[in-house]
Structures are given as structure tokens and as C-alpha cells.
């Protein structure tokens, strides 16, 4: 009995690839199954991929970044009324003698007010001045820092770079707030200076233009350091060495070679600081005084305190017009940088 081979027939093995019931089921339902839909979606994506990749961000930015400017422009020609929303329509149907007319009322009074009232004119000029001075001060702080970073031993550079970026990641509002505690009359700076015997009376720094400069330099420093550092890093240090060997004083070598080579980075950094600083609201509001007129703050006050949306829009349009040249410069610079890196 035990020697007898088992009589059970060997299972049938098909010679070709096997088709299981599961596969058949899957194939028949694939048109409706989740994976089927996904597969079709992927096919569709591949056919229209490029268009879709471009169109999605294009449409989004067009709708939420470009179109709103046209509305601001439109509103800046409107009249303020006491209503919700607080402005009169620009285009309206006027009923008269049973006929209706399409009327367009362009109201220039907002712009006239902006250019006639010395308050607004001064706020504009002040913004540009404060922003320009602050940009220059930021450059003065950033140049030696970026230079020192690019000269540091290579294994330190990543850490130093991260240390410059880190404050940029922490809240802007918090960083401005930190300076209030330092600069106010009974603040840390005055306590230290009086304690050291440098001054006997507390200095008034908070709520002055000086505090605004400090705030802008502090908040925007990373924007200036990073592009300058990037151009310093690409520089061949032997150029300086050669200049010094040939008898140039190091300071002169720094100005004629280092700064000139870093010029693209310097320009990018200056634009990155100047443009947003000119429209800054938080810094002049928290650190500046009532004398510190800046246009971003004016816009905010017109909008939130006076509920004058048309006038706020006109302020925005004029500010935008004033900043168009630097913004276009910046955009060109970015685009050029992109194509240069792409070619390299």
C-alpha cells in the first residue's frame, strides 16, 4: 500500500500565461473601477500635460493677482458713498424719459485729492526717502556680513547661511515687536546705556524715524545678504590676491573688485529691500511715530479707519505706478538669472 503512487491526477497547468478569474473581473470592470478612472485620467493628463502645467498657475495668478489690480484701478475712479460696499458703481444704467442710458462716471477727485493735499504728497516722498535710506543702511550692514560669510571655511558656510535664513522664517511681526521692548524709553537699550553710564537721560528712539530705519534694516537684512553672498561665493578669490600682490590696498581691492563683481547681487538685494519697504505698514505703524508718514500706513488708515475704499485704491495705484520701474527691473533681473543658470 505504501509503495503505491498516489492516483491523484496532476493538476492541469496551462502552457501560456494564466488568466485568473480575478484578472478577468478586473479587466471587465476596469473601465469603471477607481484604477480605471485613474488610468484614464493619467492618459488624459499625458496628452494635455504641458498645457495643463502652464495653464493652472497662469489662470490662478491671473485671477488672483492680475485681475484684482484692474478692479483697484476701476475703484480708484469711483465715488465714496455710505453703503455696503462703500463705493458708487462706475458703470450704471440711467433711466430717463422711459429710455435707459449706459452711463460711465469717471471720478478723478481721488487722484486730485492725492496730488493737492500735501499730506499725501509728503507721505509718498517720505516713503521713498525712508525706504531709500534704509536700503542703503541695509547694504552697509549686509556687505561685510556677506563678505565674511563667503570667506569663512567651507564647512562652516552652510551653517552660516542657515543662520541668516532662520530669522527670516520667524514672524516678521514678532521681530518688529522685539524691537519695541529694546527701544522704548524704559526699554533694554536705555537701561543698559544708563547702567554703563553712557547717558543719564533715556534716549527717545521708539516712535522716531530712527526706529523705522532699525526696523527695516533688521527685517530685510536676509533679503540683502543672500543675493550678495551668492555672487561673492562665485567670485574667484585669487583676483583679490592678485590685486593686493600688485600693491592695491585691501580696501581699494574690495571696492574695485569685490563690490563690482557682486554688483548683480547688490542690485537684486537693493530691489528686494527697497520695493516692499516703500509700501511697508507694520514697521512704521509699530516703531514709527505720528510724524512718520509712510504711504502704506496711509493706505491702511484710509481703508480701515476712514472706510474710504476709492481713495485707498487711488493710493495703491499711485504707489504701484511709482514702484513699476523697480519691479520691472527686478523681474528682468530674475528672468535673466534664470536663463543664465539654465545655460550654465
Amino acid at each position, binding site marked *: 500500500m505504501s509503495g503505491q503512487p498516489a492516483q491523484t491526477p496532476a493538476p492541469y497547468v496551462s502552457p501560456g500565461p494564466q488568466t485568473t478569474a480575478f484578472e478577468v473581473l478586473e479587466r471587465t470592470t476596469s473601465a469603471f473601477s477607481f484604477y480605471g478612472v485613474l488610468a484614464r485620467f493619467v492618459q488624459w493628463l499625458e496628452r494635455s500635460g504641458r498645457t495643463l502645467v*502652464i495653464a493652472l498657475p497662469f489662470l490662478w495668478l491671473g485671477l488672483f493677482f492680475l485681475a*484684482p489690480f484692474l478692479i483697484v484701478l476701476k475703484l480708484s475712479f469711483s465715488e465714496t458713498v455710505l453703503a455696503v460696499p462703500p463705493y458708487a458703481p462706475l458703470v450704471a444704467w440711467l433711466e430717463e424719459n422711459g429710455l435707459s442710458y449706459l452711463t460711465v462716471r469717471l471720478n478723478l477727485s481721488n487722484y486730485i485729492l492725492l496730488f493737492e493735499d500735501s499730506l499725501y504728497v509728503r507721505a509718498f516722498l517720505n516713503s521713498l526717502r525712508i525706504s531709500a535710506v534704509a536700503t542703503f543702511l541695509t547694504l552697509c550692514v549686509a556687505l561685510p556680513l556677506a563678505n565674511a560669510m563667503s570667506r569663512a571655511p567651507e564647512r562652516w558656510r552652510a551653517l552660516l547661511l542657515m543662520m541668516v535664513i532662520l530669522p527670516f522664517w520667524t514672524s516678521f511681526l514678532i521681530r518688529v515687536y522685539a524691537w519695541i521692548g529694546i527701544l522704548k524709553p524704559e526699554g533694554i537699550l536705555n537701561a543698559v546705556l544708563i547702567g554703563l553710564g553712557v547717558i543719564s537721560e533715556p534716549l527717545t528712539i521708539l516712535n522716531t524715524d530712527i526706529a523705522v530705519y532699525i526696523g527695516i534694516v533688521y527685517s530685510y537684512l536676509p533679503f540683502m545678504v543672500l543675493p550678495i553672498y551668492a555672487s561673492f561665493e562665485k567670485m574667484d578669490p585669487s583676483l583679490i590676491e592678485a590685486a593686493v600682490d600688485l600693491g592695491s590696498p585691501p580696501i581699494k581691492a574690495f571696492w574695485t573688485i569685490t563690490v563690482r563683481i557682486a554688483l548683480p547681487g547688490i542690485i537684486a538685494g537693493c530691489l528686494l529691500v527697497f520695493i*516692499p519697504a516703500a509700501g511697508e505698514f507694520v514697521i512704521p505703524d509699530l516703531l514709527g511715530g505720528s510724524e512718520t508718514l509712510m504711504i502704506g500706513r496711509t493706505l491702511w488708515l484710509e481703508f480701515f479707519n476712514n472706510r474710504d475704499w476709492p481713495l485707498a485704491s487711488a493710493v495703491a495705484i499711485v504707489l504701484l505706478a511709482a514702484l513699476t520701474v523697480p519691479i520691472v527691473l527686478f523681474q528682468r533681473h530674475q528672468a535673466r538669472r534664470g536663463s543664465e543658470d539654465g545655460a550654465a
Partner: protein
Amino acid sequence: MKSGFTPATVLALTCGFAFLYLPILLLVAFSFNESRLVTVWGGFSLKWYGEMLRNRQLMDAAWVTVRIGLVSASLALVLGTLAGVTLARFTRFPGRTVFSGLVFAPLVMPEVITGLSLLLLFVSLGWARGFWTVAVAHTTFASAYVAVIVQSRLLTFDIILEEAAMDLGASPLKTFFVITLPVIAPALISGWLLAFTLSLDDLVIASFTTGPGATTLPMRIYSQVRLGVTPEINAVSTVLIGFVTLGVITATLIQKRRFAEGQKRKA
């Protein structure tokens, strides 16, 4: 010239970083101060953290802010990646100049202008202002930052790898997911984190575009700061700074480890 620490570089670095970090460190230190006064050290205390946790309005605002941040960072990641790929890979298509303008302009646009213009858009579209309008506004400006990060990562990444994959028969979509995505993943992580912190941070644009029930943390902080310095705000700030620092360090370590693994594999 050998690179190394000279007295001049050490001096510049010390002064520069002291300027950058002292205000933040002082702010953190005084969040643990028993006394309400900034200049008087009344001993170590966690009482302001308790105050902060008991402040219902502040906690509600923090939760709204985190939710807006999660939504807008994720949307911005998708849009910004698409825009970054477009900028880096599609050099010729109609409207490219306008496109790059639309991507780069939000980086420098004064916030008051962006905020006002978005608000007016939402009003004329008739959208109820609140959570979603702030999220859309944040997505818009954050996606520009993500686009720049992704673009610069793609520009340093050899296009030959992608071309090889496609020559071997992979579709552009498959190439993107199998070849490109793993390589730019660190850039995507930092892009998302940056978008999240930008959203967490924003006062001006949120103030314009928000509505009832969607008061964000910066708006609460701002209204308290206007009334003066309180250690409670220092405590909130310290918590925020702690989270951001932790996030940035984690992201850096992830990138480092990936880099080290890559090096090991090569060796």
C-alpha cells in the same frame, strides 16, 4: 587666498549675527520673566505661558491660523511646483514674459497693495469673506515663493536625466514622478514649510481679506502689541519661534541625510 577665519571675518560675523539674534533672544528670555516689566528680572516663571493657554481668543486664533496655513501651503505647493516647472523647463510658449512677471511680482509687491486688491476682487465676486478668502490670498503669494525655490532647484538639476528617461520610453508624467520628483523633493519640503510659515506670519493681507470668525494669530498679536508690550505676547512669540526653528532644523537634517545617503550610494 586661503579661506579661513581672520580677525576681520570673525568680527563681521559676530556683529552681524549678534544684531540678527540678540533681539530674538531677549524676547525669548523675557517670556520667562516673572515681572511684567521688560527691564526688571523678577525671576524665572512660566506664568505667562499659563496666561497664554488660558486666553481663549488667542488659542482660537492660533487654531484658525494653523488651518489656513495647512490649506494654503498645500495648495501653494501644487501651484508653485507647476509654475516652477514651467519657468525652468518650458522656455518658449506664448505669454511667457507675462507668466514670469506674474510669478516674480508677488515676491516684492507691497503687502498693502496685494491685500487691498484681493479684498476688492472678493467683494466684486460676491464671496463671503472668512477662512477661504484668507486661504486663497495666502496661496497666491506663497505659490510665488514655492515657484522660485522649485525653479532654482530644477535649474541646477541635470536635464539629461529627464531626457534619458523619456528617450527610454517613459512618458513626461512618469518621468516627472519617477525621476524629477525624488530629486526635487527636498526643495518641495522647504517650499511647503516656507509657504506655511509665510501664511502663519502674515498680518497685512489677512487683515484685508478676512471676515467674521476668521481672526488670525498675527491679527490678535498686532491688536495686543498696539496696546503695549506684554510678556504674554513674548510667550506666544517664543512658542512660534520654537516651532519654526524646529521645522527648519528638521528640514535641514532631512536634506543632509538624503545628501549623505546619496554620497554613500555613490561610493
